[in-house]
């Protein structure tokens, strides 16, 4: 396959890799500030023990495990989306595949950290291997996670190989020697001859076929793990597919945010990651939103209808009890995200004098609805009157609707902004979904007195730190390797021009 690299591509994709400007160092400094408190508080946890968290029996899994499931979910989607688009030979996938695959690797690495953080004695981690039995669901999780991480690293490396050779051969004279050496070692003597291209594409195809079931196994194994504990709310056959759907849904959200972040970081990427990608993957995002709503309804409706003695308190805690703000907050975020993605497609972009379609109306209504939601969530004694609560609920729905209507026209001409806002809502909503799966069950466990769980400063700081580490990995990795797959973009261009083989 004949590849051509233009001077333009080299300037835009490779030159920034050698420029450590102020923007880069400011980002690193900001991320260190975000990560540092979490690390310090984790060291404190290591010294003092899990008593500094709110973890206790029967709530032995808290914010750390919520992070674990959330990160497993978002990371599952990256490589699975990339592999699916590759198998379907979708051409617009080319500029985003690398970001998608790297998100999987970094997501899984940070997810693994959560398990260690959840242990009071991480030095005993080795015991899970030394004394692990095959019948233990934890072993299935370890097997699935390790296999997926290794396969994802391999898939990313395969896709990087021609670009590493490119970096090796085009490194500027001013580039540090260690960096040139690194590219030489990692390029594995890649020469780009026809046989190497053929073998690389065969290997990528086989990995793409295998990685989809491995990815699905990873997230369903987590739901099996829950089911085998025989706790109310977790003995559900829907949990496996529900987790997978949620994973793909949130994974697309993270992919949108990561690509937009990369575009902001390197302005030239706007030429490669165009609005076409947001438009096309956005449709799939909308479909996943519909499937997610169906599963949420299914999961809630079954438990509500059967009113089983152990199950119902868990559902009631979500619908009306202490977890109601998280449960309804999750649903409202998802409704808002779906509206943001869908509604702008059905309004005209001509200016309107309709008061309900003004941005100022939308923003004012958003602020009022947030205040009412907060008031309802706080359960203030002064607002305990049922009539007052009903009035507040009706007012909330009215302002929520006005908020959605008001921002629609503004979003019409801002596809990327709309997608990023929707993605942020979906990510936060999905974190809450993981919270809503775990915490109501653990606080209403079988054969144990009901209890409460409120994450402490340590758990909150470690959670923030985790997302900081994920971002740091992303920023540092893309200072060494191009965030857009140069060879795939070139190949795509050649195919579009009809000159590719």
């Amino acid at each position, binding site marked *: *396959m*004949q*590849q*051509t*690299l*233009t*001077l333009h591509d*080299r300037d835009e994709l490779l030159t920034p890799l050698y420029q450590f400007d102020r923007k880069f160092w400011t980002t690193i400094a900001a991320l260190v500030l975000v990560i540092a408190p979490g690390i310090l508080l984790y060291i404190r946890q290591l010294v003092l023990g899990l008593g500094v968290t709110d973890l206790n029996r029967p709530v032995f899994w808290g914010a750390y495990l919520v992070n674990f499931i959330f990160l497993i979910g978002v990371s599952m989607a990256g490589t699975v989306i990339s592999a699916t688009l590759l198998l379907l030979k979708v051409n617009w996938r080319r500029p985003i595949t690398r970001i998608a695959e790297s998100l999987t690797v970094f997501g899984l690495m940070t997810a693994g950290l959560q398990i260690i953080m959840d242990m009071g004695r991480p030095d005993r981690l080795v015991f*899970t*291997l*030394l*004394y*692990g*039995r*095959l*019948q*233990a669901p934890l*072993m299935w999780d*370890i*097997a699935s996670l*390790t*296999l997926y991480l*290794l*396969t994802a690293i*391999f898939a990313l*490396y*395969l896709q990087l*190989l*021609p670009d590493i*050779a*490119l970096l090796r*051969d*085009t490194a500027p004279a001013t580039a540090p020697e260690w960096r040139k050496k690194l590219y030489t070692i990692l390029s*594995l*003597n*890649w*020469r*780009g*001859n*026809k*046989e*190497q291209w*053929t*073998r*690389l594409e065969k*290997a990528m195809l086989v990995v793409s076929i295998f990685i989809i079931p491995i990815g699905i196994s990873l997230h369903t194994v987590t739901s099996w793990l829950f089911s085998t504990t025989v706790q109310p709310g977790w003995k559900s056959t829907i949990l496996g597919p529900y987790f997978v759907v949620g994973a793909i849904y949130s994974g697309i959200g993270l992919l949108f945010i990561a690509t937009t972040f990369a575009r902001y970081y390197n302005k030239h990427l706007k030429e490669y990651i165009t609005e076409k990608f947001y438009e096309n993957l956005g449709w799939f995002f909308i479909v996943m939103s519909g499937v997610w709503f169906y599963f949420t309804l299914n999961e809630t409706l079954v438990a509500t209808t059967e009113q089983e003695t152990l199950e119902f308190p868990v559902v009631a805690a979500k619908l009306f009890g202490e977890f109601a703000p998280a449960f309804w907050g999750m649903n409202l975020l998802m409704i808002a995200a779906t509206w943001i993605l869908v509604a702008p497609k059905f309004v005209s972009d001509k200016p309107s004098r309709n008061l309900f379609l003004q941005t100022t109306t939308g923003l004012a209504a958003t602020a009022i609805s947030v205040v009412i939601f907060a008031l309802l969530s706080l359960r203030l004694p002064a607002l305990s009157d049922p009539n007052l609560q009903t009035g507040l609920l009706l007012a909330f729905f009215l302002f929520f609707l006005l908020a959605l209507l008001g921002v629609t026209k503004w979003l019409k001409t801002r596809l990327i902004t709309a997608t990023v806002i929707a993605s942020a809502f979906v990510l936060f909503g999905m974190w809450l979904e993981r919270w809503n799966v775990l915490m109501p069950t653990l606080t209403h466990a079988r054969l144990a007195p009901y209890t409460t769980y409120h994450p402490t400063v340590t758990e909150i700081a470690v959670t923030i730190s985790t997302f900081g580490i994920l971002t740091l990995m992303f920023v540092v990795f893309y200072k060494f390797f191009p965030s857009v797959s140069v060879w795939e973009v070139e190949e795509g261009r050649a195919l579009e021009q009809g000159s590719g083989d």
Partner: protein
Amino acid sequence: MNFPLEQPIFQFFYWLVNTPGVGAGVVGLLVGAAITTFALTLRWIASAKDVEQEAYPYPPKL
């Protein structure tokens, strides 16, 4: 009535799923097989010889 665990095959399965440490052994085998496959695939790609003397695209002609 035959009890399944009287049969060696079921005794083996019982040993396989219940013995501490065997789980890690199975995971190790799985991971070892994956790493070996990936390493051999990379070697297979790297060792490909240019049979038709195709034009070498790297470094690119700028």
